[in-house]
């Protein structure tokens, strides 16, 4: 089987190295933004994490469609792995966003369209994973979970459109330093953000891959158990 130890996985080594570079850029290299101060550095985590959670939703819906089409187990495994990792990224995105918003906007939470959409999509994918753990295992569970994955993705633009319309009727209350100032950072912001996004994307891919392998082992165990308990097969 797999003889290379887990810690020598090239993806893991590469994403660790990139994460190190990103941390150096974020905390040492890039100058502090003058309007928001040190709190602005959260942005370098928040944006890549948010990108990771979006990537998660995209992979869930794409592999759900592929599962419904091809009925191949591997798409279902990929969907559930990226849903779990995407949800972790989603939770970190919501938390880091709130920590940033409190000093900068003056509120922990507001009815802004992107925030509302992110929160509701988060709930839909929580429901997706809960459904998977409640439903008895089998192909019916995989099929229905795939349907939920597709519906979540279809609902996303409608939620965004509605949340946008809603926030126009109820303008968000933003009073902090972000209300009236442009960023004083130029190209440095872009470089750090790009590096950090690369690092978090690789981390995302590594985590999904690790979860996928565990999932495959789980399925193998189920198959083995079934094979040994079937009468006539010993």
């Amino acid at each position, binding site marked *: 089987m797999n003889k290379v130890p887990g810690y020598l996985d090239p993806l893991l080594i590469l994403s660790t190295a990139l994460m190190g570079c990103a941390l150096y850029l974020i905390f040492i290299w890039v100058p502090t933004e003058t309007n928001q101060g040190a709190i602005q550095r959260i942005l370098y985590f928040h944006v890549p994490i948010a990108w990771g959670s979006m990537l998660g939703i995209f992979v869930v819906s794409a592999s759900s469609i592929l599962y*419904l089409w091809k009925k191949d187990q591997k798409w279902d495994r990929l969907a559930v792995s990226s849903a779990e990792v995407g949800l972790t990224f989603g939770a970190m995105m919501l938390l880091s966003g709130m920590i940033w918003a409190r000093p900068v906007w003056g509120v922990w939470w507001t009815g802004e369209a992107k925030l509302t959409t992110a929160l509701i999509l988060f*709930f839909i994918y929580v429901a997706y994973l809960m459904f998977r753990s*409640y439903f008895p295992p089998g192909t019916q569970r995989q099929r229905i979970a*795939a*349907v*939920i994955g597709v519906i979540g993705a279809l*609902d996303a633009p409608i939620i965004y459109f*509605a949340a946008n*319309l809603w926030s126009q009727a109820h303008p968000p209350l933003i009073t902090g330093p972000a209300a009236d100032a442009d960023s004083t950072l130029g190209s440095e912001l872009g470089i750090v953000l790009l590096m950090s996004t690369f690092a978090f994307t690789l981390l995302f891919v590594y985590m999904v891959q690790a979860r996928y392998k565990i999932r495959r082992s789980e399925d193998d165990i189920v198959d083995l158990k079934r094979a040994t308990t079937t009468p006539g097969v010993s």
Partner: protein
Amino acid sequence: MTDTILVIWAIARKDLVLEIRNKDVVVAITGFALLVLAIFTFAVDLSQMNAKLIGPGVLWAAIAFAGVTGLNRAFASEIESSTLEALLIAPISRDLIYLGKSLGNFLFITTAQIIVIPTFAVLFNLIVFRWEMVAICMVTAIGFSAVGTLFAAMSVRIRAREVMLPLLFLPVVTPLLMAAVESTSYLVNGGTWGEMASWLQLAIAFDVLFIVISALIFQNILED
């Protein structure tokens, strides 16, 4: 075409006859919604300004939560009396089963609304008896039954279906809820069709999308 309509109506009529006999669903939805409204009348101060501000939100939150309790029954009764298998072996396509069931649920939610909305008007002292309200209630009931029937069918075989259905249903119908609340807000403040047009269009788009998608994917859900 006529056959299709007859099949859909046959399934909806079966549910209606059952409902007329035991009154499970409509009583559940109406009772729950009225209770939520009643609790809110003493939970918050209902001076005229407040009622206009929070009334629409309370009304639609009550109907959404109450709707879930009713939708839970839609397929649960089929399982309890083991009639789901009979429905599945009938020589009709699965999308018609979905549409028939949705039509039944739509009628139940509408019936509940006919009782709940006037009570809301009395308790919150707001004027809601206008054609716009009929349109809002219709598009919301269509969307609730379209999404709710799909999710009720999905969660019917789960042991914790009372928990699972609201967790699936409520986030997905959020855009529809926003549309209902916002257009009702315009309505109680004396707004016109033009002001609520974009919300009603959004709600109609939601309804059409979910009816079409659900009918298309419904056979994936009831397959064994």
